[in-house]
């Protein structure tokens, strides 16, 4: 049986993080967990996947929620916790996977198979990528990036002690603009291999 490998990838919107995660998952022939994570949970538990996906990577609304003896009515918080438990179960069962976002670098911290990565990019590169992907103007792309990153940051920081994108919170942080998506992926594969053979 192959040695367990869990790669957690945090990413800025438009940094190519998801694409890199896909390349890593393909290279190591392990599943990629992203939006499909909610579908997986929903199908296992006979739940409404659409409803769960609507709550994915969202932070709790403080004004509309209340905590009583550790219980909180926020759907976002409860579904995030459900997702975290699911990830932990998967990791504890010895499965290998690449997971994008979902506070996974914090949730799975302590697991020896975990390698955590954060991918950032220069703003002009991010704008270019988002303009092309969503057919947006520069202004719209910039706005979308700012909104998405603000949401990811709020979501992450509401559940984790370490800050989103802070290098101290990850094993390695990379700017994908320097090498481009493909070569950044190669660099990371090198890094993961070195970590696994103990050379890093």
């Amino acid at each position, binding site marked *: 049986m192959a040695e367990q490998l869990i790669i957690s990838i945090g990413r800025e919107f438009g940094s190519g993080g998801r694409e890199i995660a896909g390349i890593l998952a393909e290279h190591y022939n392990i599943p990629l967990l992203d939006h499909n994570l909610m579908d997986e949970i929903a199908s296992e538990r006979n739940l409404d996947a659409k409803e769960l996906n609507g709550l994915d990577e969202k932070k709790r609304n403080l004004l509309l929620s209340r*905590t009583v003896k550790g219980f909180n009515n926020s759907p976002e918080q409860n579904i995030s916790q459900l997702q975290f438990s699911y990830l932990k179960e998967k990791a504890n069962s010895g499965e290998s996977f690449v997971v994008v976002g979902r506070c996974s670098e914090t949730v799975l911290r302590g697991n020896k198979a975990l390698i955590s990565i954060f991918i950032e990019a220069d703003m002009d590169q991010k704008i270019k990528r988002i303009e092309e992907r969503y057919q947006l103007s520069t202004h719209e792309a910039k706005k979308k990036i700012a909104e998405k990153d603000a949401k990811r940051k709020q979501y992450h920081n509401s559940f984790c002690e370490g800050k989103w994108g802070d290098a101290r919170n990850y094993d390695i942080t990379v700017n994908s603009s320097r090498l481009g998506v493909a070569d950044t992926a190669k660099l990371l594969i090198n890094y993961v291999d070195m970590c696994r053979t103990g050379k890093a």
Partner: protein
Amino acid sequence: MRVQKNRKDKDMLSQIFAVIIFVAMFVLIVTEIAERQVISSICALLTLIFVFGIGMRDAGAVWEAINLRSIASTGFWYAAGESAQASSGINWETILFVFGMMVMVEGMAESGFFRWLCMRIAKLVHYKVIPIFMTFMVLSTVLAMFIDSITVILFLAAVTIELSRLLKFQPVPMILAEVFCANLGGSATMCGDPPNIIIGTSLGYSFADFITNTGLIVAISFVAVMIYFYLVFHKELKNINGEEVDVKTLPSPESAITDKKEFVISTMIFLTVVVLLVTHAQTGLTVSTIGLMAAVVTLVTAGKKALKLLRRVDYKTLLFFIGLFVVISGLEQTGLLEALAGFIGKISGGNVMLMIAIIIWLSAIASAFVDNIPFATTMIPIIRSLSATCGVDLTILAWSLAMGTDIGGSATPIGASANVVGIATAAREGHVIKWGKYCRKMVPATVMVVLISMLVIYARYL
């Protein structure tokens, strides 16, 4: 003249301090910047320093707020007639009673009593979904009359989710109905919901007073609530795939009992406490005495587990209550609540019907969004003052306040503790209950019961 001006300035200063601290406490509780007991304790300390110390410069007011002398009075433990906590400040009777009930409930939970009861009822109705739905509503209402609604929902919701998996039905409608009924049941008795305990001990009402007044309103409302929830939910409660379930594969109720001896003892303690509460006006035992007795007997019979039970008591809630009483005492002693009562009296123009409507709907709407415990605690001096100044029977205002605060909390996901616990228990298993889904079903039920309460109060007392 100068002395009078100085006194006026001092009064004004203490009132400003009291309002700032009170509003800050509410805002901080809502934003959950820190745990609520921390917020209320800090605000209590600030009340003692700024309102009573710097503002009023009155050491007597501090002692009145801390109210330790009430514990030393005979009336605290034994009252031949009605006994009200005449002074403002910490309502130690409530604190001691809630503590005692917490210990007793921990003992019951440890023995597996609640899970056994839920499973037993499900078995009695042959694991048929609609009969489980109806009986669990009854169970939720009846249990919440004597036990805090959080505990009731904690067990009922967990069993409902377990049964929904085994019997293949949607658990959310059942949990929503249970939550509503827990809040409804709590309003029927003096010990069911914290606002009622505070109202009862502050104004000197007995268990019998509540059950014959709010209890009657609850009985009428319960029939309407059962019909409403049946009509609203019965289609959603159908077996998801229409599969037949082999009931032999379901867990037996007896498997819930962790220790038979403990189970029998805790059930007996519970029943004795119910009898003592029902008869406390006749026996003269105050709720603080009954609470203490329940705690002592539970701990003595728990033996080695006594420490474990004591550790599980929710001291945070008790501390929250203590802080809250001090902050409200600041508002009361500076005369602010009296002024507010005067304002309500003025806008109602002395019209009792309008006064009742204001109290019941204001309490219901406020409790739907903010914690009903601080709200009820604040309103008690107001209705006391309203009764004195407008000559309205205090009991009528008290029942209006109790029904408004207890029922209003059901309207939104954050209105009452039972709602939060029920929603969270479901959501932790992936059954999401958002504000929209919750309010669509619960707001009409809340409005219906508040309306019934108001009409019953009008018909019976005016």
